[in-house]
């Protein structure tokens, strides 16, 4: 008995019948036996499965000029793109989490419109594709691009499934009979299945209860339920189909846990009563039926009952901890709103500020610089003989090819680590928050990404993963409570993780640490100042080893030698801020970010004259000046 695996197989079967109706599946699973088994089943059901590499450029996807053939023949030769498929076809997309934004955008557009957009030389063509997007991202990595997630109907998560197999008899019967059936007839049958209003209502109700706002999800649920009914050989969509469809479409998208039935308010029940005639018998709970002959259905459904049954079914495969998380509103969608990024994109062939062209092959996204290519070819014309049959006027060889080059600036990400421990909270937490808000305004002007990490008690927590949305940054900041120990080592470790992840994405991270540098909680979460300091120093050195820029804003009442020592170990610029205000902090950070060292004089003075803070009030003075 393995309900999740059953669901996965039914999903594969439904996909093989109607790839373009369902738009595809977002399959989250590591490379392993479970995924391989599922893909093997899918390939058996749908032999036309085609693999599309993630690095395929738009020319290959949408179709375009076949450069090699064109040059050879001396006339334009076009090749159709992979996305143009006149018959319903599933396309397999490996490494979907590394899909470049532009490819994801193209795929989303094609899925939405059901046609490949008109290119320069061709008109728009209808296409019937569904995607099998294989996403291997780990928990802390950004998943596949959100726009594409949204469009794929089925979300399948096989990450926590120990083993494949254990399907029940119904499933096995379906898998055995499906290859011998006429898929297009089955598809048409599913399309024209009649749905009662109550069924649609139940779907919408369930989606609402689970906090799924997208109407695409509701549509996909309805469509999948119809396909599942058709697969069972039935003329009626039953609760079984709805439950399974909900598990495959709605449950993974859930953003909130349903209110337990006993807390549910009575009014919806009453409304439902009014909607449906009272004399209807409640649908008898049909046990698992042999698939060949469905039982006669009760004359009508009660939408409310059905929604409840559906909800129950939808939650059947959801682990309890996920449910608890949802109930706490800890996570928005479990999938997150990932952007999906390809790797380091700093040297770019595609976009950015143009650089001079250089010889190279127009492949893998590099674009031919026509003018430079022609320039290179012209002097050699006399040496080259064109074949007599060629209509070309120019003999161009591959060695003439020049490609465009661009320098792409990499976005910066500012990581704020905020000490919210008791000692810091006492004086400075409010001030630190103020400073961060000012800095946020500046980053807004520069379109930086920001990330906020708070630490107190025994752990550091990413309050806000890197984002450009400053409203969210502010919200996470204002919700930061103070008090507890100072787990500095944990904080540096957490910052390092985020910074390295950002670096992998091709961004330039820099850290702003706001702390008084008095660690008293070790990496293991134990108390004790000596161990805590040692751990912090060790991690500070690790940070330094990665050569990531950092600035340490000492928030204690007077400059703390220990903080200075830590900052030095990190290779961070140390800025003591006795009696500083938010403005000064912001100025100091800006100076570090713009590549200047922070004002040495001010730093020194502040360090040497800890007791005379009123002597220096460089609030309006630009530290760089």
């Amino acid at each position: 008995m393995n309900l999740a695996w059953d669901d996965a197989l039914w999903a594969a079967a439904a996909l093989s019948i109607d790839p373009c109706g369902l738009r595809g599946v977002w399959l989250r699973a590591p490379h392993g036996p479970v995924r391989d088994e599922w893909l093997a089943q899918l390939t058996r059901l749908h032999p036309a499965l085609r693999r599309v590499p993630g690095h395929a450029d738009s020319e290959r996807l949408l179709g375009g000029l076949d450069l090699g053939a064109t040059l050879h023949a001396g006339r334009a030769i076009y090749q159709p793109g992979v996305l143009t498929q006149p018959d319903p076809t599933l396309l397999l997309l490996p490494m979907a989490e590394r899909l470049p934004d532009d490819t994801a955008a193209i795929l989303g557009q094609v899925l939405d419109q059901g046609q490949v957009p008109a290119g320069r030389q061709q008109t728009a063509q209808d296409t019937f594709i569904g995607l099998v997007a294989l996403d291997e991202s780990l928990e802390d990595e950004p998943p596949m691009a959100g726009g594409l997630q949204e469009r794929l109907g089925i979300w399948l998560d096989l990450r926590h499934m120990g083993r494949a197999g254990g399907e029940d008899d119904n499933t096995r019967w379906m898998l055995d009979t499906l290859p011998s059936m006429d898929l297009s007839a089955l598809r048409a049958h599913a399309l024209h299945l009649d749905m009662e209003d109550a069924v649609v209502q139940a779907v919408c109700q369930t989606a609402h209860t689970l906090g799924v706002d997208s109407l695409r999800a509701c549509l996909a649920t309805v469509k999948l339920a119809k396909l599942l009914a058709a697969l069972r050989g039935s003329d009626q969509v039953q609760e079984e189909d709805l439950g399974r469809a909900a598990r495959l479409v709605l449950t993974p998208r859930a953003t909130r846990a349903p209110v337990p039935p006993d807390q549910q308010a009575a009014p919806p029940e009453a409304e439902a009563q009014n909607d449906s005639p009272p004399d209807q018998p409640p649908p008898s709970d049909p046990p698992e039926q042999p698939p060949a002959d469905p039982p006669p259905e009760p004359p009508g459904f009660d939408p409310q009952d059905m929604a409840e049954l559906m909800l129950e079914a939808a939650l059947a495969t959801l682990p309890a901890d996920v449910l608890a998380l949802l109930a706490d509103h800890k996570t928005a969608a479990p999938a997150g709103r990932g952007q999906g990024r390809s790797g380091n994109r700093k040297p770019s062939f595609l976009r950015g500020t143009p650089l001079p062209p250089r010889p190279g092959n127009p492949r893998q996204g590099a674009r031919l610089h026509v003018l430079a290519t022609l320039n290179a070819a012209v002097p050699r014309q006399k040496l080259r003989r064109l074949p007599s049959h060629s209509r070309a006027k120019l003999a161009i060889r591959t060695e003439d090819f020049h490609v465009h080059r661009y320098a792409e600036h990499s976005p910066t990400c500012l990581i704020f680590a905020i000490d919210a421990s008791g000692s810091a909270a006492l004086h400075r937490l409010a001030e630190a928050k103020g400073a961060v808000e000012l800095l946020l305004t500046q980053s807004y002007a520069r379109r930086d990404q920001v990330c906020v990490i708070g630490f107190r008690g025994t752990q550091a927590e990413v309050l806000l993963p890197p984002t450009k949305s400053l409203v969210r940054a502010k919200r996470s900041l204002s919700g930061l409570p103070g008090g507890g120990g100072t787990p500095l080592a944990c904080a540096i470790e957490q910052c390092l993780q985020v910074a390295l992840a950002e670096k992998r994405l091709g961004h330039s991270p820099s850290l702003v640490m706001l702390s008084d540098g008095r660690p008293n909680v070790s990496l293991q979460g134990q108390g004790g100042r000596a161990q805590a300091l040692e751990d912090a120093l060790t991690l500070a050195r690790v940070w330094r080893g990665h050569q990531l820029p950092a600035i340490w804003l000492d928030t204690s009442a007077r400059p703390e030698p220990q903080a200075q020592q830590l900052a030095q170990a990190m290779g961070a610029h140390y800025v003591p801020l006795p009696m500083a205000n938010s403005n000064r902090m912001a100025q100091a950070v800006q100076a570090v970010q713009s590549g200047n060292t922070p004002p040495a004089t001010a730093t020194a003075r502040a360090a040497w004259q800890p007791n005379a803070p009123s002597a220096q009030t460089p609030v309006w003075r630009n530290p760089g000046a």
Partner: protein
Amino acid sequence: MAIPFPFSAIVGQDEMKLAIQIVAVDPKVGGVLALGDRGTGKSTAVRALADLLPPIHVVKGCAYGCDPQSQLANCPDCSRLKAGSKIATESKPVPVIDLPLGATEDRVVGALDLEQALSQGIKAFSPGLLAQANRGFLYIDEVNLLEDHLVDLLIDVAASGENVVEREGLSIRHPARFVLVGSGNPEEGELRPQLLDRFGLSVEVRTPQDLDQRVLVIKRRDAFERDPQAFRDSCAADNEALRKHIVKARKGLEKVHTGDDLLRTCAQLCQKLGTDGLRAELTLMRASRAYAALQGKKSVTTEHLRHIAPLALRHRLRRNPLDDTGSGTRVQRALEEVLGA
């Protein structure tokens, strides 16, 4: 060809539909920016436009879809065609062009025609998306995630209505007057103020929370997918009525009177809200006029203004990025103050 979902069959989304109708009546209003979650039907509404609007007459053979009536031969194709004998015309649907996020610069502005350059050594221009969108709509999904260099391009072209290409040894200018339609989810990133300013109206789109509405959406979509042609035919009468309505409003637009005191109110409102430049006033005035024309009225009233002001102004407020207060509320408040006084 895939059949678009009929505009008149879209459930709810009154604000979005109104904004689209307003720019369809008067393209000078500028573009529409639709902000909201995914899966709320923004794309569907935009893509239904081509089917809704009456077809346009174009010069046959002109890649830029120029108007035969226009005396200005400012496009390379037309100046060639008009120099010759009488020009042929044809009618085609209003272009609604998708600009995908990752589009390359030369796909957007146009580039050297690779085919002709390679095979014949001819330097010819191959028009890009901006040329295709001329006299129509340019739709950008997830506009807030658009790459900066594309934003720069759009900001320039959207303001001037002309695309100037100076690259790869080409020197071409061609008309590119289009209505910019953008959609996106503000949670995922902000838009540059300059680009925001190019959008005439902004609407906030939410998923209908009403169960019946959602059921209706699903049912209509289901019916559409069963038999697109039949569903379209069933909505044809409504679509036709809507089209006539828009055509009538276009004709009536010239005659709509805008009083001086109303303009004064517009200016007061914008002053109160501290919007930059005069574009806010102009857009507000134009949009209110188009709205009045849609209502079949001969003059703009404060009621029209009240209805349109949030759409035209809420994205223009000089905003503190850390201020959570919805800008819609601020516009409402200013409206109360100005109109109430």
